[in-house]
């Protein structure tokens, strides 16, 4: 991620200039689709108050896939996934062009270390459980684009916890077209209960970023 941060610095400037130019358009009040920070926090740092996960440092290919999934109703349609159903209407009006614009914008956000909020888990007990996850997400939870598996290290722990619960309960990953999500459902099923989920997330917390 540090490498990426350097690589995108040129993009940041570019995107700022283009936003600025758009904002100066005469006439009607300017609106675009750059709403992300309202829910996902300043510079996409994640916002527990809204249950909006961290976007800073998230892989562009993963964000793209999820935005397309939300837009198509592949994700965010199960009524028990309340934050997901809140995300979906945001994605529905997006065009491919505005998704590209958002990826460029989000890519410019600096990654800052995530606050650890789950402190009562047993990371040591979570370590062996993580073995299953490591196959796709990597031993350091750094992610693997070839397998379509995003980085887990550095993501908000409360979000990882919520998503594992969603996969386990079938609130996510059960849509026929959610190919990658479908792979997560049996994986999450290997975690016996909330304590196991808490422990594995606690282990991911130790991997840092």
């Amino acid at each position, binding site marked *: 991620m540090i490498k990426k941060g350097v690589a995108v610095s040129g993009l940041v400037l570019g995107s*700022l200039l283009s936003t600025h130019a758009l904002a100066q358009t005469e006439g009607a009040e300017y609106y675009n689709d750059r709403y992300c920070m*309202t829910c996902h926090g*300043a510079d996409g*740092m*994640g916002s527990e*108050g809204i249950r909006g996960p961290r976007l800073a440092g998230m892989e562009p290919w993963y964000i793209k896939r999820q935005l397309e999934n939300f837009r198509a109703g592949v994700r965010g349609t199960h009524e028990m996934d309340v934050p997901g159903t*809140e995300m979906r209407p*945001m994605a*529905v009006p997006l065009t491919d062009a505005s998704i590209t614009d958002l990826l460029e914008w989000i890519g410019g956000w600096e990654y800052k270390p995530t606050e650890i909020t789950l402190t009562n888990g047993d990371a040591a007990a979570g370590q062996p459980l993580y073995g299953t996850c490591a196959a796709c997400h990597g031993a350091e939870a750094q992610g693997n684009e070839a397998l379509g598996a995003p980085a887990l290290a550095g993501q908000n722990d409360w979000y990882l916890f919520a998503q594992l619960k969603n996969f386990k309960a079938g609130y996510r990953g059960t849509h026929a077209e959610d190919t990658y999500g479908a792979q997560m459902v049996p994986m999450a099923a290997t975690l016996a209960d909330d304590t196991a989920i808490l422990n594995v997330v606690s282990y991911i917390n130790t991997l840092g970023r």
Partner: protein
Amino acid sequence: MTNPVSRREFMNLLGATFGTGALIRVGSALGMLPAVAALTRPVLAAPAPGAGTAVILGAGISGLTAAWELAKAGYDVTVLESSNRAGGRVMTLRSGDVVDEIGNRQVCEWDNEPHMYFNAGAARIPSTHRNLLSYCKELGVDLEVFINESKTALIQDDAMLDGKPIRNAEVSTNVRGFLGELFAKSFTTAQLDQPFTESEAETIMGLIRQFGSLDREMNYKGSNRAGYVSGGFIDHGVQKEIIEFKHLMKSRLISQTLSANEGETGPLLMQPVGGMDRIIAGFTRALGDRVKYKTPVMSVMVKEAGVEVAYLQDGVPQTITADYCFNCIPAHFMAGIEHNLPGDYMQAMKYIRRGEAIKGAFQARERFWEKEEIYGGISWTSAPIRQLWYPSHGIHKEKGVILAAYDFGNGGEFTRLSQAERVEWLLKGGEKLHSNYRQMVEKPITIAWHRMNHMLGCSARWGRSGGGMTMEEEGLYHTLQAPALGRHYMIGDQISFHGAWQESAILSAHWALADMDQRVRSAA
């Protein structure tokens, strides 16, 4: 009545009939009736040398109040507002305005006329809200009367009288008749808890008779207070038939009807001429270019030497350092803004739940309610829209804007619907009250405060127990009210016991200003 009914028993009976809570509680947002607030306008000392800067986060009414008082005292003030408009949940919609709901942007297409507006957030000013009223006076905001209750407005409940709407006057007259008769009978036969003299008893009986519109025998036989079916002016009036209490008591709305117009939402209420945001315009006019729009806050660092705030302006990072910071950003956003606020502060912020109030509005092609002798006030229904509000202003104009729904506590279900589904939901509800509703209204607007950009919630919810705050909740509240390092204050109706009122937001700002002022004075 062979068993005398004591007054205490009578009150118990009342409570059992209506629910004590229901009698005094209109809803969580309107739940408590605080005493008339004293005028707390602070008289701030001039700033200490080299300590005269203040940054205000958010141009909601609490932020604007703080900014204005500080500016008058000689502070150098900057207000950072993430939206393109000031006011927060004090929002008035007119032709061309954008409803910036995330994922459901709407543009208001109503006729462009001064009376064609809708107060999408705050909409009523009680006579007792002295501080708000004093700012209206100071800032030259013209006020007019707001009609909350109309006796000709309607009450409709699917569980009552086969869902047929009846007039507010029919409800109040028949309920009072029933209660008056009940009370008179118990009074004449009972040995009361506390004896009255004969003349006192006579006075009380007179009062009861008046209250219930009873006949000489203290029986309720109907009353022209409920209105006539026909006549009454130049020929004999035909009185409406009594609606028996056993029918009325089937609806929870009956107690709502009686209590909604008492206390804080009782007469006399006011509204600014031309829209509630005239108050905001008064503040922003006075503050001038101290208010910076489209400047989202990115970080808040409270340091010994001052508060450092990073924000964006036209997408470009900026920093401002000030001696004091007054922050009315909704608490649920602060977890997503970089900061160094104390841990117990954050714990308190994370505890607060986001309010889910919703409203809806239509342009009416004609003021159809006036043809039904309704000229303002509220109709109630058991449908999820709960209320229709007829505008108090623009009487006899061609068109008007009607409030099509107001759920002040549980709008979550509505929020999750698509715009088309929401509109159908509004129409279905309105049709329960007015059979021609669907033909009469157009150009819908829906307001889901839970999804509005820069807001994502209506008034903060502190209490989770259903009643007031628990001791623990009160502790969290006081934690959040207290300043961080004597420099950073959270303000807004979120820092009050009484959310959703502008007066609460103003008083929270006054509290913070007074606390700051005390520190300034004691350091001098």
